[in-house]
């Protein structure tokens, strides 16, 4: 290795080490809630993975495998999902440097790019290491052969490297195209939301195993990337992959990682040093969407509340990423509906129920899921403006109601009418849905205080925004699910009208109770809130 190459490798190692150190410090200090939740989730999935790995290992070691289709499907799924996740992170976060002026004038961009990829791989291990290790351990115990576990672990590590370099290259390619395209630059927010949802839809489609998806997947199973599944089981008793498949899998790793990493480095150079299009500023000063404000009873709402509502609606229109968790339930509803229709050949009769549920989630999450972090650069002004917590939080709640309640009631009635749902059922769904929706924003506010999100995500085309935390969304869904338990239980058991009425009332009451408690909790937190110095 020449001196220059050694220096390059050392710089790449240093970048990776420093990036990981920064992530770890953030997790230990300002994001310690995420660390605790992450360990809990990791243990949960680790236990599931360990048990699953044990049973799979036992079955495979005992009976062998008739075909290699399942391991190959698994390998493809890991590659596709992993690549998507890394690419998404590259686009939104890791592909943009925090101190480009210092870093890029101090060392080679190639070293920086390799370091960033290395850091992503370590972060992947940090977040997935525990469940993955327990799964491999379970698999090893199940097969009774430590070699099986060792081979699986080694291949998993190599696949992680492959997924990281491919995801980084794909993400950088997307960033490059975005910064060179006027259309993408202008519509980046909307395209990002649509793209994310389409990816999710594609995932659901392939998961379904429909004939069309099989027609696409089957040829892929005959290609070397799928043979990584063969390679992963190469040490497992009773499994004998063909040597050409093993060589193919090794080839994908041996050639794929360095070649794709090289491509990623070249793309990174183009992104970090390239010119981005700067379309002339649009005279987009319309307040379309705020006509909803006309519905607000002016006499009963303070100017502060109206200002918060208006700001929330305007920002959501111009940067849909902020309200992605408000759009997600409708997308999920559409995807599950399509999936059911493909599978069953009929329009799902539960769509009105789904619309009511989606409306509740949207009402809660659209504007209330990140009450403090969502203020972004305006936080110092908000805190020092003398705004009382109740008015500020009420503005976020009312913004949610303003959008979510019509969506809940309207969606339920329209879909119910189209599908011929009995009017009584439609009415009941609309009442229960809108009742629970009233409490949902309070729950979301509390979830957003427990898991605030302050980290800026960069959207290709130079826009930056703060999205609510996934953990906050998760906590919101858990609490809402607890409130929904009574009504879900009677729905599942098909009990009588009185029981249904009672449990529906109980669910609405629980949602109100949780929402009220959440609102009060956040109100107290907000009144005594002292911003983290990093946010000022």
């Amino acid at each position, binding site marked *: 290795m020449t001196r220059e190459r050694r*220096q390059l490798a*050392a*710089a790449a190692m*240093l*970048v990776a080490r*420093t990036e990981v*150190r*920064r992530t770890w*410090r*953030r997790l230990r*200090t300002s994001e310690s809630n995420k660390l605790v939740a992450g360990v809990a989730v990791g243990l949960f999935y680790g236990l599931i993975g360990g048990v699953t790995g044990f049973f799979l290992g036992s079955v495979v070691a005992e009976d062998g495998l008739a075909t290699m289709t399942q391991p190959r499907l698994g390998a493809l799924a890991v590659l596709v999902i992993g690549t998507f996740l890394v690419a998404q992170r590259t686009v939104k976060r890791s592909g943009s440097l*925090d*101190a*480009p*002026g*210092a*870093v*890029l*004038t*101090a*060392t*080679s*961009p190639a*070293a920086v790019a390799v370091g960033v990829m290395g850091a992503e791989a370590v972060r992947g291990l940090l977040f997935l290491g525990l469940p993955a290790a327990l799964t491999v351990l379970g698999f090893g115990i199940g097969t009774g052969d430590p070699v099986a576990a060792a081979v699986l672990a080694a291949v998993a590590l190599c696949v992680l490297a492959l997924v990281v370099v491919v995801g980084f290259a794909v993400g950088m390619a997307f960033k490059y195209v975005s910064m060179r395209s006027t259309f993408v630059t202008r519509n980046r927010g909307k395209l990002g939301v649509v793209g994310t949802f389409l990816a999710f839809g594609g995932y659901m489609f392939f998961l379904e195993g429909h004939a069309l998806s099989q027609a696409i997947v089957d040829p892929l199973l005959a290609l070397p990337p799928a043979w990584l599944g063969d390679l992963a089981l190469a040490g497992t008793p009773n499994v004998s992959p063909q040597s050409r498949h093993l060589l193919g899998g090794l080839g994908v790793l041996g050639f794929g990682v360095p070649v794709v990493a090289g491509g990623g480095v070249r793309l990174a150079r183009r992104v970090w*040093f*390239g*010119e981005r*299009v*700067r*379309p*002339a500023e649009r005279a987009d000063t319309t307040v379309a969407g705020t006509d909803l404000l006309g519905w607000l009873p002016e006499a009963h709402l303070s100017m502060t509340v109206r200002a918060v509502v208006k700001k929330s609606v305007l920002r959501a229109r111009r940067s849909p990423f902020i309200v992605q968790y408000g759009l997600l339930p409708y997308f999920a509803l559409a995807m599950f509906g399509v999936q059911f229709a493909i599978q069953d050949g009929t329009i799902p009769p539960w769509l009105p129920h789904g619309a009511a549920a989606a409306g509740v989630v949207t009402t809660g999450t659209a504007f209330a899921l990140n009450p403090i972090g969502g203020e972004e650069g305006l936080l110092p002004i908000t805190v020092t403006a003398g705004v009382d917590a109740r008015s500020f939080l009420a503005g976020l709640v009312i913004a949610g109601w303003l959008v979510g309640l019509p969506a809940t009631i309207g969606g339920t009635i329209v879909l119910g009418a189209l599908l011929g749902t009995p009017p009584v059922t439609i009415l009941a769904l609309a009442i229960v849905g809108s009742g629970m929706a009233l409490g949902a924003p309070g729950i979301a506010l509390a979830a957003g205080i427990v898991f605030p999100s302050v980290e800026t995500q960069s959207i290709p085309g130079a826009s930056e925004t703060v999205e609510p935390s996934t953990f906050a969304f998760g906590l919101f869904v858990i609490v809402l699910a607890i409130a929904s338990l009574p009504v879900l239980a009677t729905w599942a058991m098909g009990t009588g009208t009185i029981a249904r009425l009672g449990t529906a009332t109980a669910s609405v009451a629980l949602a109100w109770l949780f929402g009220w408690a959440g609102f009060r909790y956040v109100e107290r937190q907000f009144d005594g809130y002292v911003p983290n*110095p*990093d946010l000022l």
Partner: protein
Amino acid sequence: MSDAPAIETDSLRKVYGEAIAVRDLDLIVPQGAVYGFLGPNGAGKTSTIQILTTLQEPTAGTATVAGESIGRRERVTPHIGYLPEEPPVYPELTGRENLEYVAGLRGIEADERIESFLGRFGLTNGADRAVSGYSKGMKQKLGLIGALLHEPEVLFLDEPTAGLDPRAARAVKDTIADVSDRGVTVFLSTHILPVVEELGDRVGVLQDGRLVAEGPPDELEETAGEDANLEDVFLNVTRSRSSVAAPADQ
């Protein structure tokens, strides 16, 4: 480095879409000079600096820095130090860790130099605290140390004293004078004209991407009239352009 100018540009041009940030810029900065680079907001100063530090490619034209063409980044970057307007520091790391990181990227052993700089800038006591707790002035000093650690031949400073208290600004100015005395060329972009008046050997005023005035500060002040200072020069050369441009803006 030979006797070639520290910085030389030839018809340098930078275009963003329909906007021209830098228009056919011809510039010569002698070795060891402190060059004050002035101009109103949006004049193209930062674009010029980013081109000269290889962070952006010019649309047209050529330039050399420390005798090396800016087209060959790996040849230019060892010779330059750069402090952007926003100090390039990681808030999660301590001051010392930030500097060790920059030294490591450049492949230099700089422990003693780091200690010396920390002492000179009064940062020794805070060196092992996370930078998230630093004041703007402390971050700026840290960024400046990072730009100086490898003893560059040409130092690019973009608004190095903006937002600093008088004591911190004094420390930065002393450092500029000190490195200049040791033969380092300083390319200094700032809105704070007394800084350039005090330290600058030559001054260039950029307006709409064009160099509209250039020379030693005292010569420019003489041309602007009796008792004129650099502020008068700046207002004169930029006002005449603004007054021409104003009707078109309306």
